[in-house]
């Protein structure tokens, strides 16, 4: 559930980020940029979740 929500969040944010990014003149550039943003959201989210998982709870 949490991963699904994170994916949806990353998708929505990536679409808007790619749509408003300056200096991107073609749809292909925007698509590539959007996919990068999407991947970074998911990747950083997963890394952070494992880092937090490794930190013991007091």
């Amino acid at each position, binding site marked *: *559930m949490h991963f699904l*929500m994170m994916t*949806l*969040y990353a998708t*929505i*944010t990536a*679409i*808007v980020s790619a*749509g*408003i990014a*300056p200096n991107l*003149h073609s749809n292909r550039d925007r698509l590539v940029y959007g996919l990068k943003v999407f991947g970074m959201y998911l990747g950083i989210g997963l890394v952070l979740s494992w880092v937090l998982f490794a930190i013991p709870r007091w």
Partner: protein
Amino acid sequence: MQTKDDLTEEFAARYAAIDDDAPKAYPASKRMLAVVAAMLVPGAGHLVLGKYGRGLLFFATLTGAFILGLSLHARLFYPLPSPTEHSSAPDFVGVLWFFAQIGSGFCYLVSYLLGLGTVPQPSAATYEYGNTFTCLAGLLNYLLMYDVYDIAAGRKR
């Protein structure tokens, strides 16, 4: 061999081409109309400026995010601190949530008029997810307003 006049004409042609390619500012009335439209309906500002593809994409994405949030049991927050379901103390953080949600314009207003999300359901498992998505829609629409203004002012295309 090129003469000075030939070079001047060549440079003039080049600069004219660059100038044609540069984004242009829209008239002040259209600029204002676009920003107000963007404020009221996500993506409408881009439609006013003739960016139809982007406008429809933003409308579908942000309206969809708000509807998704409501379907996940989001609640609507209000501009004045009010007692929460947990305590009688004023909920100042809720005011910040309100400013995030109201950014989505008509989505918030229509939901309020239809009574959607007016009854908080914090016991629902997806309550926090829902609040997050409704706020995401509003906050991203604030970004779109800036984008519309930049396009209308000729700073970007």
